[in-house]
């Protein structure tokens, strides 16, 4: 097993873990967003979707455990990388200027990542780990989004997710070695589009609910 530790423990290996787990979250975001779209059909459709999810219990538990595992790997590795990268330049530059490689997304990855972590915890406590007796899932969501502060918080957070993904998407491809002049531009465009879809797709839901209620 030495070889596995050596490979994954190296700088490139750690990046591989970030990339693979990142891909998982991209898939999760896609699934989550598609499911959430039922909310536009109406409360019943949304509740039915939630109910359907609950009926798949063993599979759902498996997916949830998987997500938690990947999240731990992603967060833990990310923190190690953040720390190591910080240590790699003990004396900072007095004058900092960029050459045009960095983007808003790439420059803020660790910070947006931590914000997303906080948001996810908050989100779980808000919607998942709540007393569901006598309330439908839609009721819980609607209750939250009747509070403008919550609406703002959710919109801001999913935009931050969008920023994180704007770098993470193409970066995950680059890290696993997929970069070619023929298709890299497409991957980059797809990444930007995807981050916009995530930000707008999720961001519009709180707005929509607070408007109709």
């Amino acid at each position: 097993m030495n070889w596995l530790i050596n490979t994954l423990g190296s700088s490139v290996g750690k990046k591989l873990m970030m990339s693979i787990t990142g891909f998982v979250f991209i898939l999760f975001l896609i699934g989550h967003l598609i499911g959430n779209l039922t909310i536009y059909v109406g409360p019943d459709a949304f509740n039915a979707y939630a109910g359907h999810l609950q009926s798949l219990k063993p599979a759902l538990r498996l997916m949830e455990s998987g997500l938690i595992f990947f999240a731990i790997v992603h967060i833990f590795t990310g923190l190690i990388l953040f720390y190591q990268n910080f240590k790699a330049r003990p004396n900072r530059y007095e004058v900092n200027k960029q050459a045009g490689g960095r983007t808003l997304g790439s420059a803020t990855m660790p910070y947006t990542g931590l914000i997303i972590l906080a948001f996810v915890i908050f989100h779980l406590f808000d919607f998942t780990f709540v007393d569901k007796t006598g309330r439908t899932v839609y009721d819980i969501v609607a209750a939250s989004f009747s509070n403008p502060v919550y609406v703002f918080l959710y919109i801001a957070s999913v935009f931050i997710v969008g920023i994180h993904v704007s770098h993470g998407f193409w970066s995950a491809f680059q890290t696993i070695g997929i970069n070619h002049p023929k298709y890299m531009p497409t991957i980059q465009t797809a990444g930007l589009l995807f981050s916009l879809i995530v930000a707008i797709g999720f961001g519009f839901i709180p707005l929509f609910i607070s408007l109709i209620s």
Partner: protein
Amino acid sequence: MTQNINLTLKVWRQNGQQDKGRFETYEVSDISTDMSFLEMLDVLNETLTLEGKEPIAFDSDCREGICGQCGSVVNGRPHGQEKKTTLCQLHMRHFKNGDTIAIEPFRARAFKVLKDLMVDRGALDKVIQSGGFISVNAGGAPDANAIPVSGEIAERAMDAAQCIGCGACVAACPNASAMLFVSANVSHLALLPQGKLEAAKRALAMVRTMDACGFGNCSNERECEAECPKGISIINIARLNREFFKAGFFSHNE
């Protein structure tokens, strides 16, 4: 076209590794815009010498952009603001009269400051020593045309092989990572049929040494590519990643 300009220079002065270092400000006047940046520093050093002060230590050798020995961070940019240019090839016509220019050494944990703008980039040599070569002794090579290499592959290998080892990629990287440097070397040799035999061993050894030297991790910020005086692409980093995973998961090397 040629003009003379006056400048204010804020130069990092540091007397050895133990010293904390500080900026010192110098005024230089009558700088011809045809001068290179290092010639401008030469002029300042001549003045300092005659004033009884110690001249600024900085590295340079070929002064034609190929040896890779020069390099400082000028106004926050390694080798200055011009694209695909080493510091020795940066000319003063890119500055305006009255400009203030801040000059700092390349900064990274793996590059110790020796004095003023001079740094120790020996870590880059160490990485090559760990595997950045093809193991062939003098004397046993087959006829050169016995190993055909398609023109296209030779061109791509050459794109990577152009690296001058100046360390600007490390200096530019927000994480002080040396991935562009390492990937250029790995790519050059992995692309050629001669280099494929040792590709797995090479990728593993070079990444391991790179990590041990204290460079940061790549986070695909692309600053290295933007600052590289030879325009080396991060496509090479993707190739290094592929080579590394191939080696780590599918070869018999550990």
